[in-house]
């Protein structure tokens, strides 16, 4: 096509040169009494799917009104070119003497087009049969794709496992037809991915030819997920074309732990001055390893709480560790309930639990009382024996 155009151009040039040499009596198109075609932008760069408007001026150099018939004599195959003026599609234009008139050459760049230069030629013929031609060069700078594009400005986001990730996707339909795209995401198990268009949850979205559609994607990772980078491919699939974009979710780990007892029981009874073992259970409910967990306590005055082991070097997510706490009450503690607070802490996470410790007083003095009563009872028995049977 390009070759053809060049050939024609060559012939035309040759004809013009011959005309100028051989028929000097004939006025040239540029000379007085003829018409001229003029445009400022004779060589432009465009992208596929673009609509170009060239404003072209016809200059009437003669002293009479010129009825000019216009025609696009050369255009690449598959391209559309129309001549417009005053809102109409035109084929003829009348120009006053010594005046000029403008019209528009509207070119629609096809979507499926090779990269390269394309040439258009407009030919104008006036009343006297004189012609004027205007070649316009259009350079397509991009490969015409005839497909769908799905893209986002922000493909990677970071947050904790309980965060919600919102991505803004742009779906560009670069096909020639209107398409209905089915939206899908290939997320791992436990993830939820929602597509939102205009605040509505959708599973498909319609896009006219050569338009864009904004899609919001909301991603909720599962709560118990390990820290790491997860890639979620999101796909828009229409009948013929499809597009895919990979969204990256960077889950930062959460540090969380829970302190309790194996049975969940948070009370204990203790004799004043004695000690009591309470089994504690520490579980890592976060998504990152906890290191160097220290256990400490706040207990009433003169109470002692000892832990076995004193600290835990490492606890992986989801794992449990058992710690024995030996609570020793003060020997001055009064009967009834006391609160003993036990804490497990790392710089990242901490949890504490309150134990209700019921103090029993020692039964020793109770036995002393029984002993005293016994002695008195024996005394009376002795009296009975001594005086009784008189």
């Amino acid at each position, binding site marked *: 096509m390009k070759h053809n155009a060049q050939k024609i151009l060559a012939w035309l040039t040759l004809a013009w040169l011959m005309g100028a040499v051989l028929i000097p009596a004939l006025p040239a198109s540029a000379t007085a009494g003829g018409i001229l075609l003029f445009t400022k932008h004779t060589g432009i760069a465009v992208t596929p799917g673009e609509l170009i408007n060239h404003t072209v001026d016809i200059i009437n150099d003669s002293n009479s009104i010129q009825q000019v018939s216009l025609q696009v004599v050369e255009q690449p195959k598959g391209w559309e070119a129309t001549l417009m003026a005053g809102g109409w599609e035109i084929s003829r234009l009348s120009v006053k003497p010594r005046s000029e008139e403008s019209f528009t050459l509207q070119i629609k760049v096809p979507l499926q087009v090779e990269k390269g230069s394309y040439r258009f030629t407009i030919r104008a013929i006036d009343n006297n049969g004189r012609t004027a031609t205007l070649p316009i060069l259009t350079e397509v700078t991009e490969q015409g794709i005839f497909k769908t594009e799905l893209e986002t400005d922000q493909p990677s986001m970071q947050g904790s496992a309980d965060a919600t990730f919102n991505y803004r996707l742009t779906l560009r339909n670069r096909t020639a037809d209107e398409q209905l795209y089915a939206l899908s995401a290939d997320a791992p198990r436990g993830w939820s991915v929602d597509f939102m268009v205009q605040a509505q949850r959708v599973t498909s979205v319609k896009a006219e030819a050569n338009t864009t559609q904004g899609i919001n994607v909301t991603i909720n990772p599962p709560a118990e997920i390990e820290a790491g980078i997860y890639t979620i491919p999101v796909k828009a699939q229409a009948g013929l074309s499809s597009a895919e974009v990979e969204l990256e979710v960077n889950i930062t780990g959460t540090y969380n732990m829970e302190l309790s007892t194996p049975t969940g029981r948070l009370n204990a009874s203790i004799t004043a001055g004695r000690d009591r073992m309470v089994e504690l259970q520490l579980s890592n409910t976060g998504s990152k390893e906890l290191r160097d967990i220290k256990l400490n306590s706040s207990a009433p005055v003169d109470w002692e709480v000892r832990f076995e082991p004193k600290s835990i070097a490492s606890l992986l997510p989801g794992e449990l560790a058992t710690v024995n706490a030996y609570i020793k009450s003060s020997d001055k503690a*009064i009967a009834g309930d006391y609160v003993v607070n036990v804490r497990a802490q790392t710089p990242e996470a901490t949890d504490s639990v309150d134990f209700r410790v019921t103090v029993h007083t020692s039964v020793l003095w109770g036995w002393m009382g029984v002993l005293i009563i016994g002695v008195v009872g024996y005394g009376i028995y002795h009296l009975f024996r001594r005086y009784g049977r008189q």
Partner: protein
Amino acid sequence: MTLLKEKKIAALFRRTRFMRQRVYHSRHPFWVMVQKEVMDSINSWRFIILLGLMLLTTVASLYTAMSNLRSAILDDTATPFVFLKLFTATDGTLPPFITFISLLGPIIGIALGFDAVNSERGRGTLSRLLAQPIPRDYIINAKFVASLLLITVMILTLGLLMTGIGILVTGIPPTPEEFWRIFFFLLVSIVFIGVWLNLAIMFSVRFRQPATSALSGLAVWLFFSLFFSMLVNIIVEATAPAHITDVTQIIGYQGFVQNLLRISPSQLFSEATTTLLVPTIRTLGPITLEQAYGAIAGPLPLGQSLLLVWPQLTGLTAAACIIFGLSYVLFMKQEVRSRS
């Protein structure tokens, strides 16, 4: 022991078949004596008056408790022991049941025991009794056991009456824990009255005149209920440390004052019963801030309450036993002559 004669007569003349059977079934002469003593007392005006007094007390304290139960429950939402409030709730105009018992208990004890031995002696029946083929200590033992039985019956009746009317009026049944607390309270009341009974029996052995023994009993009661606290106050004023330098010092001194007060049986009784009927009481002595730190208000279980007042219970029981032992020795060593 005038009834003993009647028994003998009854046995001799075989008055009724029923009577004979009763006599026949009384296995041991001791229990026969106890039975006679009880009958003797029950038929006496003295017992009826005492019973009437106690009934009035019960009704009065029940009335006070009922009219204040609502506000008492509203004041104290920490404990679920609604029923026990019947025994402790008061608006200040009339004392609650426990105070009545601690006030009137000694009177009952003294009234039942002040003439146990000396009236027998005065009537000249003691020598006749001793002429019977029974050991001498049966007399004093039977008198004590009979009076204690009466007291037990009276206190249990009043307590159960109180409980019963309480259930009827409030519609709240006592929980097992409350029931046992009431039971132990009644038991402590019996022991407390027993102390005064023994004291009265001792005076009746010691003094020939019933009036003297009654008066001495009342004097002791008055001393402990009126003058003892004054005496303690005087001692406290005299011995109070001039400069308090230390917490332990003040606690030690407080303990000393409390122990002085505990010489009085009434003090022991009120401490024991209050602890039993108010489960939120965790300690009777002064507590330091260190002991209170980290403590949660809550009721004690019954066992712990009992353990807390165990010294008081021991003290009361031991006092009752020792006074009984004294009167026993006094009686056994006493010379009994026919009317002189």
